[in-house]
């Protein structure tokens, strides 16, 4: 039982991380119509800035600020210099340009910070584990991850549903041309959203840095999963991103946790082990396929 709860928490934590990445991506894709493959690079830049700041000041607060600033500013820079020229273009151009930017970002980061993966220690307050129930100790840093994810979700809900910017975001997701025809400076809105998306990536980057290796190419690894999340959730919907992230986090974690044991009961080990590993790897894509059969536009598509 405690194992099940622990694995559920693991799924929740993975979901929280995916949500921070997916929220920005879904807005950029849904509202601006841009397929942004560079999104994972913002996450990497955030993590590297955090590692750099932590290495030089020793303060985790400074690391958080550096990650948010670094990723946010890098995002704005990319939007202004490259993405802005691609709004009117076909998705293929966007894919090519942003793919090029991945390569550029990776090389730029290795030039600036070097290839050696930097060390990011867990800050003292987040070290150790909390006893949630008898026999269930859970690392505090992972609990913090879940809490921050929840805070981001609430913050975004407030931003999208209770503010003027949010109103424009929702309107933009529905009908871009109309919003622009009503005299709204859509270009500024786009820049803002892009910056916000990058900022959230930076946040995910600094949170992940003590748990994961800060290394070149760490962004591409989560990028595909993030796209799966927004496709499941429905493009352009923050609510969809949240539900999608939690679904993907749970299915992936629980699949890896329980599929092997389940199959070992049904089949011989030499068939069950590779089959379980394969199925666990494919589980989120199976989930995506099933969701798309039932709801071709995703669960909460903004354009439904």
């Amino acid at each position, binding site marked *: 039982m405690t194992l099940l709860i622990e*694995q559920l928490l693991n799924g929740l934590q993975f979901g929280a991380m995916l949500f921070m990445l997916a929220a920005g991506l879904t807005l950029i894709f849904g509202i601006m119509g841009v397929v942004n493959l560079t999104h994972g690079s913002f996450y990497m830049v955030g993590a590297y800035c955090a590692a750099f700041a932590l290495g030089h000041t020793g303060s985790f607060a400074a690391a958080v600020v550096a990650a948010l600033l670094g990723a946010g500013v890098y995002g704005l820079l990319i939007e202004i210099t490259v993405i802005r020229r691609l709004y009117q273009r076909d998705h293929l151009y966007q894919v090519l340009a942003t793919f090029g930017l991945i390569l550029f970002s990776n090389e730029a980061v290795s030039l600036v910070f070097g*290839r050696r993966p930097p060390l990011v220690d867990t800050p003292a307050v987040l070290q150790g584990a909390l006893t949630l129930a008898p026999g269930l100790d859970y690392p505090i840093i992972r609990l913090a991850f879940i809490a921050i994810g929840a805070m981001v979700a609430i913050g975004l809900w407030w931003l999208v549903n209770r503010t003027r910017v949010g109103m424009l975001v929702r309107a933009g997701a529905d009908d871009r041309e109309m919003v622009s025809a009503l005299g709204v400076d859509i270009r500024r809105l786009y820049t803002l959203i892009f910056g916000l998306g990058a900022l959230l990536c930076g946040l995910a980057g600094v949170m992940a840095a003590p748990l994961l*290796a800060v*290394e070149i190419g760490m962004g591409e690894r989560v990028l595909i999963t993030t796209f799966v999340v927004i496709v499941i959730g429905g493009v352009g919907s923050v609510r969809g991103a949240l539900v999608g992230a939690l679904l993907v986090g749970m299915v992936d974690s629980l699949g890896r946790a329980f599929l092997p044991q389940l199959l070992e009961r049904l089949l011989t080990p030499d068939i069950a082990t590779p089959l379980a590993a394969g199925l666990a*790897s494919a589980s989120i894509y199976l989930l995506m396929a099933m969701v798309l059969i039932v709801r071709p536009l995703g669960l909460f598509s903004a354009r439904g």
Partner: protein
Amino acid sequence: MSNIVKLAALTFAASAVMATVPAVAAAPVKIGFITTLSTPAGYIGEDLRDGFELAVKQGNGALGGVPVDLIIEDDGLKPANAKQIADRLVQSGVKLFTGVNFSNVLAAVVPGVIKAGDFYVSANPGPSVFAGAKCDPNYFVASYQNDAFHTAGGVAANELGFKRMVVLAPDYQAGRDAIAGFKRTYKGQVLAEIYTKLDQSDFSVEIARIRSLAPDAIYQFHPGGAGINFAKQYAAAGLGKTIPMLMPGFSMDARMLAATGGAAEGFYTTGIWSVAMDNPASKKFVQDFKAAYNRIPTDYAMQAYDTANWIASGLKAVNGDLSKADAFRSAMRKADFKSLRGKFSLNTNQHPIQDLYLMQIVKGADGQLEPKVVRKVVVDDRDAYASECKMPK
């Protein structure tokens, strides 16, 4: 008169200088060094390159007194790229190759090189294919056969008294080979074989399962970033102190150790060498490497340095003339060089026969974590494939 004396003295001095320079004033021997310098794994290529270059630098641009010209190429971790580069270099007359750092890249490069009658000396991977039926007189391995660390891991686990273990590796060929190699020598009970996803970066799920299985210890193989992630998260979950971790040395090399921080303290590794190894040549190498590059050398750097010195012994025997292929080959087969590992000899399949050590990651004299040799676990390790190799003369 005094002028004549001066002139005579000068001529004498000049001839003395010329006498010490080897007679080969010919063009330097070209060595194709194809490795991975870009991508996250680029640090491995860097260490291979820097280790090799250190040996060349110490010889003042020469190996075994023969001037060499290192042609360094980045393969981007793509076998097809590496094959193209190798073909181009073979056509341009390069006769000696080394540097590749991944088995799959090596498998693309080696056949073309040896088919052209040229030589390849592996500084890192030793895949089973080229150790067994497909062994070749022009293919040498300076590092290890891929299974060596894992079979030594099994022996070490027996000696450490681990009766019930969980083994983990990524779900791909090298991961499966790792677990198969470990199980070949491990005598205890394997509670679970866990295969992780190749691109996985979070191991919370697997770690929770390990905790619930409560084994005596775990054996895990995760190279590069995944290895750093695993070690950090294992320690964060509080298992680092309760369930010992055993792994092959390349799952926790010096760079990974630096990125893992204190999390790796107390973990066990197996390997052929350690920075803390107590032999004068090795100590000098670590010192020189630190002085030249301002970082701690990894096993990769050591292997490349050994490769360079081995090649030096071959080049010296033929005075840099690689067209004397038979003479170069028999010189290489003697393996007449001073390995930093201390002992090094060649098996019939031209892979090393060497000792393997159990190490534990502990704080060194300077307070930095480093793998310290606990004891020798395998003496004169030979790989299981040599018997399948029918080496032509």
